[in-house]
């Protein structure tokens, strides 16, 4: 399950992941919503793969992997995690309107609260990695790279998916973003 803020490129990241699973020989389904929800709101993509997939939606309490592109969004959708599932969160904070206008505070202790859902919590700074590549919009593919540690495909399949899916002029920066993301976590996690 992918979660984040409208505008972070979650849709594109999920397209690349779907393409990779298809190349990897899996049946894939994914579901998301377009339109009003995308304008800076909380967005999710449900992505399921396997020999045969029926429902395009993930039930709460059953997600093997939650990939949150924004820290607070990890917490908002943590209840989707399977007990003992893996949570991967970007440490980036994007304030929602109530916080940005001072009516509420950005929640403290998010990592501790996430650990109550699962001990398998990994927090990465995808924004810094993307900025070091000079492309803030690459946060999404950095997160795909980090998430690849928890998915049963080899590196080449993702790179092939990026090449198959993206316009040629942005392939290279995204391949670098993918590798940078993969490098954010040790090989054996």
């Amino acid at each position: 399950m992918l979660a984040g803020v409208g505008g972070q490129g979650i849709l594109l990241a999920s397209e690349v992941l779907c393409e990779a699973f298809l190349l990897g020989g899996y049946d894939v389904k994914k579901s998301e919503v377009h339109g009003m929800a995308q304008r800076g709101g909380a967005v999710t993509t449900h992505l399921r793969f396997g020999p045969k997939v029926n429902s395009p939606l993930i039930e709460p309490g059953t997600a093997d992997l939650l990939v949150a592109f924004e820290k607070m969004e990890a917490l908002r959708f943590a209840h989707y995690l399977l007990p003992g599932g893996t949570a991967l969160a970007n440490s980036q904070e994007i304030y929602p309107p109530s916080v940005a206008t001072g009516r509420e505070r950005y929640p403290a202790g998010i990592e501790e609260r996430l650990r109550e859902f699962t001990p398998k919590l990994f927090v990465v700074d995808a924004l810094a990695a993307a900025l070091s590549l000079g492309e803030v919009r690459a946060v999404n593919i950095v997160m795909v790279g980090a998430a690849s540690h928890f998915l049963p495909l080899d590196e080449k399949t993702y790179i092939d998916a990026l090449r198959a899916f993206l316009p040629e002029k942005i392939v290279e920066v995204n391949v670098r973003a993918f590798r940078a993301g993969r490098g954010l976590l040790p090989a054996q996690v």
Partner: protein
Amino acid sequence: MSNPARQMVKLLSGNEAIARGAFEAGVKVASAYPGTPSTEILENFARYEGVYAEWAPNEKVAVEVALGASMAGVRALAAMKHVGVNVAADPIFTASYTGVRGGLVIVTADDPELHSSQNEQDNRHYAVAAKIPMLEPSDSEEAKDFTKYAFELSEKFDTPVFLRTTTRISHAKGSVRLGEQTGPPFPPGFVRDPAKWIMLPLNAKKRHFVVEERMRALKEFAETFPGNRIEWGERSLGIITAGVSYQYVREAFPDASVLKLGMAHPMPERLIREFAAGVSRLVVVEELDPFIETHVKALGIRVQGKELIPIVGELDPRIVREGIAGGSAPVRAPEEVPSRPPNLCPGCPHRGLFYVLSKQKVIVTGDIGCYTLAALPPLSTMDTCICMGASIGNAFGIEKALGKAALGKVVAVIGDSTFIHSGITGLIDIVYNRGFSTVIILDNRTTAMTGAQENPATGMTLLKDPTHSLDLPGLCRAIGVEHVVLKRELAREAPSVIITEAPCVLLPDHRKKKRPVYEVITELCTGCKACGKLGCPAIEWVPFTPEEAVAAGKKQAQKGISRINPLLCDGCSQCPQLCKFKAILERKS
């Protein structure tokens, strides 16, 4: 065969699959008005070679264009969101009487859960009311196959055909086997046939008999339609279902017997009876209204439905499992975190206008578009929102109810595309009936909410051909609005239109422009929060404790400072104008 067709598999959304199905069926003309979750059907169809695809000003026109193409013997498609069918209902109900020549398919994309809609109406009722058959795919593969099938049905039974999706079909991706392009079995050409195409009462009455006979024939056809099928499993539980609910049922009850209906209307009576007789407990699982359930009950069959499955919102496997089997899986409650509603983009040209309106004591009747988000805090500058174009009629109604007391107090706000869709007639009403309401047309040169589609005022077609750009001020003047200006017109005792011209920040031309980013000079910020009232996502409030305030060199009582997120700032320069302390400046680096 020496050259066997290669079965290529692609991952397609339901909307992409419908576009592919239309292409494979040889559709020549497709028309639509953008609306979530239907928009991508035409966007994708337009990319195929040798087809004509267009954005119509509204759904009614889209159906009329598609019907015209059908009259001339080509296969044609019209696509719209569920509420678009309300707009198009007039031609649809009579197209049912005329029937077709080239196959005619009308796609209705419903939105259970109201992800991006003003209601969650169940458009299966339209199939019954208009006496038009309706197919309902349950994944992308079926979306493509049923689209092709719909054109065959349309020509075989001389009827328009509805194809109904929901958000989780239209916007879910799944694998699809691509096929070859086929075409209608006859060449294009308009053949005069007054008894079929001229719906004078005399002719229409005769056609009504044809419609009833057709529906009888279709009911018989439904018994053998391969999209209606029984999957026998354990006989203790039998579930009748359709659309995406079928997937949830298979997930929740892999061993149950299932009657999957690919045709929502008409339904196969004998097949339903056979299935009901073969299971000991019968349940209908469907989103929204008890449509199948009511039909099954009308056959005198005992069945459970909405007493187990919610009538509001969309379903998922858990809702289906717990509704039927009872009990509930131990699932943790969602964590309490600040809500994150959608917001106008940083730099959105609508923001400044709504900020100004928020300072007037006026009633703001709103409409359908991104700007409806101005209803949310901190702008909170919208009092009504009903349907496409309603802002203008609503404003005029309020004016008539309040009389002179409403002078200068009622403002309608409407986007350029929405105004063209169905705001024009409302404006004519105000002028014709001597009103004085003020109408603000937010002209951002695109149809933004659905992802920046062209419209009659943008000077570009869906197929990216340059075209005439509708002259909005000229149109308003022609209607009889004498005061069409870009300044405040509230107090005038005559109808007036204000047109704000500022392109959407999501348009490629705007995104390419390099603009300065702004920053808050910490030393100068007094924490007055004036800039925060814009509700810009880039402006963030940093709260202080008294100690932090002192440490930052501020008075102990200062509650915090504003900060501008440089990654979000669009450089629109709206916020510096609100800062009395000149604390917001262009960022140097």
